[in-house]
């Protein structure tokens, strides 16, 4: 330990107590980001303590990365500098939950699954069926901007986060929004924090709108020869009065992924392999309600599938929905486990352009002999998992080229493409944040304002922010 680190440890210890500052190698190891270790891990017990730490870091020019359960720290670019891991897992309280008001205030370090349990007791839920669901925290879920199959009906966190307490990069405790379901008082600064990878500040408490949990869940699955047919059905659903809770298109590669041992680990709910058909594209739709509503969905979806030349259709009964849904939710961690060098690309485009993009990607991968699987939200977002056989430098070059081609094709289709996950060793050669955008200039101004010392997760986000 250097003298500087020693002084810093003692100052941090005076803020949070010595027991909550770790700097021994064994404790630091789990906080590595792309192989980079922090000098210390510090675990505040309150927002005020967290603010003191940020203030200290700003004065001392110590780079700080807020973390929760660390399930998604390998997303994004590695930090340019990483002195402190600000572990928020002790900030895990449900501060207020008023089921009658449909509002919830929860600290950033709370585990999503624990929150789900508390809400479930009142027949409510947060529509955040995100990957790493059992361990992920609220803060990490929001900071990573990860989406959920439920966005088809409920939208993303942007649509149901009502407000937030946060700490800016100079240690100021501030807030925006309020714990009411409707409010336009002041600027919606909390929207900036969503998906910002901890580069603007530290979220400490989040106000959510909660929703009644759907009852009587069913899932519809249809198999298709081609991606085009599956998208044809997706468009037909979009033109219909149906409002399914989820609507996803799965590539043929998903069949194997969902049958893997990794899948049972991430989504332990019982799952039957024949849910999907091998070698086929699938469209899945979740819906809920009373008997008449379920019958209507089943009949209409089956009719639309037949019209799009589905080779098979099925309605999953309630006891099989959880297994299929769990795997859809955990697509990313499953894919990360099945290859030594998984690359996850996220594409977004208008729904009408998605099939073309998936076909372009599929052709590129076929030409290189690359195994892959994709899950696409009907709303126009797709996650592509490229599954290299090895993590070699040469493979890295191939994937750098492939991802660049897809980024360019997506930009040409007026969409957005990024590479949220890839092996650390490949990150230098890969455009993790996709094509440049003119609005980065405005983002840099925001970053400079919120984090004047440049201490918040430096280098992790777009344009080196």
């Amino acid at each position: 330990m250097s003298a500087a680190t020693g002084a810093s440890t003692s100052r941090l210890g005076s803020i949070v107590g010595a027991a909550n500052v770790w700097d021994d190698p064994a404790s630091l190891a789990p906080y590595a980001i792309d192989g980079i270790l922090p000098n210390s891990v510090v675990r505040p017990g309150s927002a005020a303590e967290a603010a003191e730490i940020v203030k200290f870091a700003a004065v001392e020019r110590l780079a700080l990365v807020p973390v929760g359960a660390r399930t998604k720290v390998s997303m994004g670019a590695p930090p340019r500098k990483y002195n402190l891991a600000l572990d928020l897992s002790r900030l895990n309280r449900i501060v207020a939950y008023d089921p009658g008001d449909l509002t919830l205030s929860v600290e950033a370090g709370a585990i999503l699954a624990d929150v789900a349990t508390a809400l479930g007791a009142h027949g409510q839920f947060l529509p955040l069926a995100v990957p790493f669901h059992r361990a992920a925290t609220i803060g990490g879920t929001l900071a990573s901007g990860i989406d959920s199959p439920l966005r088809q009906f409920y939208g993303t966190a942007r649509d149901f986060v009502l407000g937030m307490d946060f700490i800016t990069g100079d240690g100021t405790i501030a807030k925006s929004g309020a714990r009411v379901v409707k409010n336009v008082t002041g600027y919606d600064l909390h929207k900036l924090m969503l998906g910002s990878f901890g580069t603007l500040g530290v979220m400490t408490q989040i106000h959510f709108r909660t929703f009644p949990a759907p009852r009587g869940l069913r899932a519809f699955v249809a198999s298709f020869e081609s991606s085009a047919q599956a998208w044809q059905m997706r468009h037909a659903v979009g033109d219909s009065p149906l409002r399914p809770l989820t609507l996803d298109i799965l590539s043929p590669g998903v069949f194997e992924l969902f049958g893997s041992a990794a899948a049972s680990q991430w989504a332990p709910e019982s799952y039957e392999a024949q849910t999907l058909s091998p070698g086929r594209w699938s469209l899945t739709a979740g819906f809920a309600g009373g008997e008449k509503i379920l019958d209507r969905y089943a009949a209409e979806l089956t009719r639309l599938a037949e019209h799009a030349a589905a080779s098979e259709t099925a309605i999953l009964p309630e006891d099989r929905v959880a297994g299929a849904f769990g795997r859809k939710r955990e697509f990313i961690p499953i894919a990360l486990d099945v290859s030594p060098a998984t690359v996850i690309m996220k594409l977004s485009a208008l729904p009408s352009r998605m099939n073309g993009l998936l076909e372009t990607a599929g052709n590129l991968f076929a030409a290189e002999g690359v195994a892959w699987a994709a899950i696409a939200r009907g709303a126009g977002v797709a996650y592509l998992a490229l599954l290299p056989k090895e993590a070699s430098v040469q493979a890295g070059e191939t994937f750098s080229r492939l991802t660049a081609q897809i980024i360019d094709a997506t930009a040409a289709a007026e969409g957005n493409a990024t590479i949220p996950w890839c092996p650390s060793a490949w990150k230098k050669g890969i455009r993790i944040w996709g094509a440049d955008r003119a609005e980065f200039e405005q983002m840099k101004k925001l970053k400079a304002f919120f984090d004047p010392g440049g201490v918040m997760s430096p280098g992790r986000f777009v344009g080196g922010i």
Partner: protein
Amino acid sequence: MDSRLIHELQKLLGSNAVLHKPEDLVLYEYDGSVEVARPNCVVFPKSTAEVVGIVRLANRFETPIVGRGAGTGLSGGALARKGGILVVFSKMNRILEIDAANQRARVQPGVVNSDLSAAVASLGLHFAPDPSSQKACTIGGNVSENSGGPHTLAYGVTANHVLALKAVLPSGEIVSLGSSALDPVGYDLTGLFVGSEGTFALITEITVKLTRLPEVVKTLLAIYDAVDDATETVAEITGRGITPAACEMLDGWTLRAVEEYVHAGFPTDSAAVLLIEVDGLRETAEAAAAEVADVCHQHRAREVRVARDAAERDLLWKGRKNAFGAIGRVSTTYYVQDGVIPRTKLPATLRRIAEIGRKNGFEIGNIFHAADGNLHPIILFDARDELQFRRAVATADEIIAFCIEMGGSITGEHGVGMEKDRLMPLLFTEADLRVMRGVRDIFNPHGLLNPAKIFPSGKGCGEIHVNPLPVTTATLA
């Protein structure tokens, strides 16, 4: 105002696109609020390029600029508080693109809210945010104020439906924010700009999501002899897991005023009515309507009527959406408040509002988005009596302070503007406001754009500002 600036504006836009005579300007000193402020000139750009030209001139002459749509706002957001150039977007009112397959539209800011919905209705689509002023208000104004409306609990506010913006910063720079594709990379600048009340940029193009029209809409009118029965009904509806598309409440005083004017069929001897709408698939809407009716009866509704067709439904909604017009017949001047409370605090809050009214000698009507907890108390006063106006404002402030005490907020959908700037410290700390001001200064560093809005001035928050005589009769909420 500098006559050279007028001349330059005329050169840029044509002389018929610039108003500067006092008799013309007087029309632009109001919006739907009780605030008044006169601009020095009013201009009507036809393109983003012209907006850039206006902004450059404003910079050269160091003159404030304020954007304005239809001027239906209820917080003075589109008033030129410090004078200067009022930029009215009524000539930028084209729908630039409709993409039915992807449920998107790209519009200019001056497009009237209901015109967009009308333009896409034949495609089975609509623009979901529907403020009560939707027949007049513009989408640019909706974006600036993050407008709500009766259908927000189920469909969300404007921010939930805006994907991308083109805007002119006060520096004259054109910026494109967001993308028509979902999840644009980087910070959510679109989300930040929506609801920034015209203090960041002049918005010149908006890409919105369109929403499919529901297969079936069921509209119910539940009539009550006691206000508490109505509020308990609202609590139980969501308690049962039903999210109504809309759930509006009018108290006895308000419904009588409305009935006299609109003849929507509200019984004038009742204490409150709930206007509840459920929609979706036929099966979904029918099941929800049956359950809602059941809840209403359980909570002692005297009668529950279900609109049998679109005409009956429109009549019921006419009663709600024209409520403020109806009140305008009773009193030419009134002050509509826009508080928010957690919904479960409705009964207590209504009782407190009545007390506050009695104490200050005002009759206060109540109309509100019940499921959102978004209240619109209406305070009638005589504008010729300045003392009474001051008392009306103080009464409104007392109601807002109580909303905050209940865990609520100072504005649910009307915005802060120049109406509630002094109330911001009730909700936000000095540090919160410093951060918000700092964000404004990033985009609007010299305060050229929409100055003296949102943030309390140096006067101290206890002081009540008094304006010249206001007249408000608009049909807004």
